[in-house]
């Protein structure tokens, strides 16, 4: 495990993610809470979740080619800068007391568009920087940091929201993006692109125009999936997990509000519980995966989530 932290580039990437997710977690929780208080409607939270995903639906089929073609570190830095500017703008509006629900929807839509390009890029970058055979360790650190950071942030925001308001929370998020940008800046120097095998390079070079080359590269990815059903099933589990986990934001604030009658602080405690669990999973997950094997470990995790999610209310 420590071998991963001895690599400077990975240290910077992991640190950037913890810091960035702290801010993003605070942002997400504060915005969800603000909208629920402003509208008293779970449907409004559902709309928020839908608006976050619409740009992703439009961009995701095409951005994979860019991630595989460009320098992933520079791409992440660009995405951090763009999201930071959007959040700073809304933070200023919030401080002036002029922020409206539609502006929060817009901010989340833009930030989410960036996130859905950021996350596959950062995963690909970590794969690029990690020596083979150490992926599990790198991912353990990454996910413990991200989940812990994101969800502990949700807990913190429950306690600080009443004091610093939405503007303050968004300003903290902006600051974390600046720190994250600086971390990625220090990861390495110059432009680095993952080299393709000679056969694929020749095939792409044969494409006549940039557009044809783009579609050609996109089709390559589909061909790869068609030839690897095990990757498809793994990805399907991942997609289902993702869809279910991200929908949690629709019901969790209401659990605190309507069932526990605990307000923002109760919402904070719920997030803290998830955050502590996610962080602690770093202690046992590698051993569990080694003992059960990756597929069975995923199945056990999904089984637990299905049971507890159904029984929790």
């Amino acid at each position: 495990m420590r071998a991963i932290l001895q690599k400077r580039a990975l240290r910077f990437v992991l640190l950037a993610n913890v810091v960035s997710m702290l801010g993003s977690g605070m942002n997400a929780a504060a915005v969800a809470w603000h909208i629920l208080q402003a509208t008293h409607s779970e449907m409004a939270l559902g709309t928020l979740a839908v608006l976050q995903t619409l740009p992703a639906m439009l961009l995701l089929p095409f951005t994979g080619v860019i991630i595989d073609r460009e320098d992933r570190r520079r791409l992440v830095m660009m995405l951090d800068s763009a999201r930071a500017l959007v959040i700073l703008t809304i933070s200023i509006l919030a401080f002036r007391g002029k922020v409206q629900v539609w502006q929060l929807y817009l901010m989340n839509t833009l930030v989410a568009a960036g996130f859905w390009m950021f996350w596959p890029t950062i995963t690909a970058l970590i794969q690029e920087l990690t020596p083979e055979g150490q992926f599990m360790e790198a991912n353990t650190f990454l996910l413990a940091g991200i989940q812990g950071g994101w969800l502990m942030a949700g807990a913190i925001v429950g306690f600080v929201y009443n004091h610093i308001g939405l503007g303050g929370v968004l300003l903290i998020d902006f600051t974390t993006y600046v720190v994250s940008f600086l971390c990625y800046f220090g990861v390495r120097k110059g432009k680095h692109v993952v080299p393709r095998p000679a056969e694929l390079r020749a095939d792409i070079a044969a494409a006549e125009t940039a557009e044809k080359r783009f579609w050609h590269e996109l089709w390559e990815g589909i061909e790869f999936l068609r030839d690897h059903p095990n990757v498809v099933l793994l990805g399907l589990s991942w997609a289902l997990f993702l869809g279910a986990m991200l929908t949690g934001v629709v019901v969790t604030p209401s659990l605190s509000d309507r069932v526990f009658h605990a307000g923002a602080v109760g919402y904070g405690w719920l997030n803290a519980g998830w955050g502590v669990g996610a962080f602690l999973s770093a202690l046992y997950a590698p051993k569990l995966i080694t003992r059960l094997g990756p597929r069975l470990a995923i199945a056990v995790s999904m089984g637990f989530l299905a049971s507890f999610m159904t029984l929790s209310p």
Partner: protein
Amino acid sequence: MNTSLMEQVPKHFMGRVQNAFYFVGTFLQIALSLTVGSVAQKLSLAGGFAIIGSVYLVAFISAVWPIGSEAPAIAGNHCMSSAVGSVQMRSMSRIIA
């Protein structure tokens, strides 16, 4: 899941492969958010949780679904060659056509 993907998908395919699954995941999020939000508000909050739980159940089934073992694409060059080969074959068939 991330580790398994990193082990099974070559580095130069990682962006495209991940995005394919994120696309499915975000589509699910849209459908689920509308359904869960509506059920939680109009019927019961427990119903909303149950819907999310059932999606995790489908993920469980997908994870235990029996498939033939396949060597990781990164570890075994033959898998990589198979992807490359399929692309070449498609290109060749186009040329022949």
